[in-house]
């Protein structure tokens, strides 16, 4: 990780205006977005959008051709190019030939992408951004920190200062007055500009139309008052049919700003008369800049389904802490990480891809149905192939990958930690490890791992056998969770076996882009877990469950080990998470709740993979309510706790404040117990609460359920 990058994170975190504004916005956005989509079948709308955009991405050149024909027939001049430089040259030449002295612009990410303003200004042409946020950052010589709200990182005091220094002295930090000031100062610019430059939100091939969406009304002025209008449009904005506008226009304002519709939508399909009666000169530039190349890539083609709503930024637990500037100068947040890698260079994304904690929030809200976390993993994988893995990481994987060595080290660690462990927690670690216990205590490594403990448990002999996949945390840190699971399944008449050959699930390697390592982990586990004939393979860790169910297959596929896929699929069919299995057993009457359980209040934390990949979030809630417990929901129960596997070690600066927010929400819920279905989250949240001296108990659902059964 580059030193400047780490510094940019530290600076962002130290800026209370930034995290305050973004934090408040992300909370309001969540509520507003849900309200905007009331009565609308979001899944249906986004399925439409994904189909429309995916089909367009498969025919980009064809659609561009069609667009050009339709638009040209109406009198529009269409220029198509792959090169950002050619776009800049075209506009500058046009401006010079037509004697253009001043230009007004409405918001366009495509022109940000190619740094158009600088090019025109160098030639002595005045270029004025007119979107309020864009104007502010233009005056302040900054770059946008958010695709939809470019100046969200600035306070009204800073804006007043920027206006005072650059436009007119004496501006007060009063938002209504600042907005009026902008109106008054930009109005003459609109009236006197010779050229208007806009972007477009949608381009319709069959009619040669562009659709422009704004709230301020600046795009209507930019496309009405100057005698020349130039629209710069990225190829990914193309759709085939006019009717394709409907789902996009339905989703875009709701996802972007939680509005049913923006104040203004303009659909321009050809030149219209100017105010002096002359016909407007309309130029539409269709810019490729690697979009076609992206469309050819089987994995990244999906990214062209983006409609630039920025909802992936708004729901991101990391973005709301650090804001956009940490991500770079143009596109920010989840989708921005991907676009930067393509429109810039893969290596430009090498640091920012690490910001993704893989919580999956963005995937859930994306109106283009883009699997952003998966594409970021793919970037990680390609970077690892291109640049190799960092040395320390390589060292870690070589240990994790060597089962015996790993297990020996964990045992040694259990002895080595003795001086630091207290009541099952490590609260301080010496020297270079101290960062790990700064914000939360770590669980002590168990004296006897679960793999040995299970041998001592007297289980009834049952015909039905279940294999337990421990995963590193249950095996070495929380063997008690494993014991609870054995207890529950024994009650249902199932015997639990622990296949000794099981090893790391491969998630750490996969999430670091080391797919060869991950695939080998998977292969070892497949062999171990299929060795004996069991009905289910159960795990108490959602990351492990997802690995066994989905990732083993994906990892083997990624490295071309296709002959092992049938076995991987056989295993996947047997895999189930603990709560889902327990709930099935309750339904079948094989598990019964004790009578007279004291009604205890609990709150529930949704683990990322458990909710968004396994979709099992309601199951444990229901189980515990059936047991007689009373659920008190916390705020943002499904927001990541900041654990993210090794994220907490790689980016502790970001992980810590994410955890902090989670702990505050837990405390506000006021229940004495938090239940969770993930040992990683138990470690993060349990450790965080311990460090704060909180009395709130943190348990895996399995532990509490075991106490509630007959």
């Amino acid at each position, binding site marked *: 990780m580059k030193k400047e990058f780490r510094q940019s994170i530290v600076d962002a975190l130290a800026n209370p205006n930034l995290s305050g504004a973004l934090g408040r916005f992300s909370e309001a956005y969540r509520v507003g977005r849900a309200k905007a989509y009331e009565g609308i079948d979001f899944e249906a709308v986004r399925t439409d959008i994904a189909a429309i955009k995916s089909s367009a991405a498969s025919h980009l050149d064809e659609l561009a051709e069609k667009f050009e024909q339709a638009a040209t027939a109406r009198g529009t001049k269409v220029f198509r190019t792959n090169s950002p430089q050619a776009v800049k040259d075209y506009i500058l030449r046009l401006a010079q030939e037509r004697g253009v002295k001043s230009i007004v612009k409405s918001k366009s990410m495509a022109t940000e992408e190619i740094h158009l303003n600088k090019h025109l200004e160098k030639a002595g042409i005045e270029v004025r951004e007119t979107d309020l946020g864009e104007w502010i950052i233009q005056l302040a010589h900054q770059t946008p920190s958010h695709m939809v709200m470019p100046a969200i990182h600035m306070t009204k005091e800073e804006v007043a200062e920027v206006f005072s220094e650059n436009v007119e002295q004496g501006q007060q930090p009063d*938002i*209504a007055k600042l907005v009026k000031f902008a109106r008054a100062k930009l109005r003459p610019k609109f009236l006197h500009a010779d050229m208007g430059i806009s972007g477009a939100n949608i381009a319709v091939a069959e009619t040669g139309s562009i659709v422009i969406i704004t*709230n301020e009304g600046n795009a*209507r002025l930019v496309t*009405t008052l100057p005698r020349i209008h130039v629209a710069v449009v990225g190829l990914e904005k193309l759709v085939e049919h006019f*009717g394709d506008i409907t789902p996009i226009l339905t989703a875009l304002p709701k996802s972007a700003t939680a509005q049913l*519709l923006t104040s*203004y939508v303009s659909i321009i399909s050809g030149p219209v*008369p100017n105010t002096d009666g002359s016909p407007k000169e309309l130029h539409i530039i269709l810019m490729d800049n690697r979009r076609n190349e992206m469309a050819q890539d089987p994995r990244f083609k999906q990214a062209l389904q983006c409609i630039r709503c920025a909802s992936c930024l708004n729901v991101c637990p990391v973005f709301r802490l650090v804001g956009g500037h940490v991500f770079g100068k143009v596109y920010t947040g989840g989708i921005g990480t991907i676009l930067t890698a393509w429109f810039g260079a893969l290596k430009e994304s090498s640091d920012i891809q690490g910001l993704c904690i893989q919580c999956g929030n963005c995937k859930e809200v994306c109106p283009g149905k883009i699997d952003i976390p998966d594409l970021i993993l793919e970037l990680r994988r390609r970077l690892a192939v291109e640049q190799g893995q960092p040395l320390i990481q390589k060292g870690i994987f070589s240990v994790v990958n060597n089962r015996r060595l790993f297990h020996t080290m964990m045992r040694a660690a259990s002895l080595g930690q003795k001086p630091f462990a207290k009541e099952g927690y490590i609260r301080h670690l010496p020297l270079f490890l101290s960062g790990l216990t700064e914000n939360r205590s770590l669980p002590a490594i168990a004296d006897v791992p679960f793999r040995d403990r299970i041998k001592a448990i007297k289980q009834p002999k049952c015909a039905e056998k279940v294999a337990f996949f421990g995963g590193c945390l249950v095996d070495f840190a929380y063997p008690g969770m494993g014991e609870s699971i054995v207890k529950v399944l024994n009650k249902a008449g199932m015997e639990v076996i622990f296949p000794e050959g099981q090893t790391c699930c491969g998630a750490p390697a996969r999430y670091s882009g080391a797919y060869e390592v991950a695939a080998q982990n998977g292969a070892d586990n497949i062999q171990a877990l299929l060795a004996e004939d069991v009905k289910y393979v159960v795990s108490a860790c959602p990351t492990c469950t997802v690995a066994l169910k989905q990732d083993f297959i994906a990892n083997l596929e990624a490295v071309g080990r296709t002959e092992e896929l049938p076995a991987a699929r056989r295993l996947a069919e047997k895999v189930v998470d603990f709560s889902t299995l327990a709930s099935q057993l309750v339904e079948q009457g094989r598990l019964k709740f004790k009578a007279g359980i004291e009604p205890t209040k609990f709150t529930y934390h949704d683990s990322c993979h458990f909710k968004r990949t396994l979709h099992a979030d309601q199951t444990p809630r229901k189980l515990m309510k059936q047991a007689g417990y009373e659920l008190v929901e916390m705020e943002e129960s499904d927001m990541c706790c900041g654990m993210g596997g090794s994220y907490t070690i790689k980016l502790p600066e970001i992980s810590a404040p994410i955890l902090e927010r989670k702990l505050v929400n837990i405390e506000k819920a006021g229940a004495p117990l938090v239940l969770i279905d993930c040992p990683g989250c138990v470690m993060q949240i349990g450790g965080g609460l311990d460090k704060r001296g909180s009395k709130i108990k943190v348990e895996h659902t399995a532990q509490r359920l075991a106490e509630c059964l007959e």
Partner: protein
Amino acid sequence: MSLIVDSSPIIDLFKARAEAVSAQVQRVATKALAMELIVRLLHQESVADKPGSYAVWAACPMIGAGERRALESAVPGLRFDVTRELAAEARVGISQMDWALANTGTVVQTADEVDKRLVSTLPLLHIAIVSADDLLPDLSALFKQCDPRKAAYISFITGPSRTADIERVLTIGVHGPERLIIVLVDELEVAA
């Protein structure tokens, strides 16, 4: 002609959605009443025959030569010969819209003629007249009627101009009108 108009779900929805985005909706039964209402509004806004106080009305089907003369004499400063200079110095802009969309509280017009856009972008108050017959449920219904091959510029207007670019605080009235009054007319016949 009745002064009391019946309520209907689509009109209620349109009104609720438009008002939710800070537009005002005034429903009237006839064109004559609409014109009366607008004259009253223009007087209230102190429209006068001087720069900064004009009202500009874009040519539209409901206004013929007769209506135009009557309105001009009722409101000094009301101009139908819309130019860029006049619109820039106008306090109020008036135009007739072609459709309204109930589920978003939107008014829509084909606006190839530049005066239609000048009167709805430059003044601080925009009065948009629309016939109840042209009230449609949503976008899908609109796109069955509105053809981009016949109109080079289609404008959708949903509430007044707004921004939240400074500290996410919603502020009404940036580059476009800061007020939008929609006059919804039950029986809006074209000019004789």
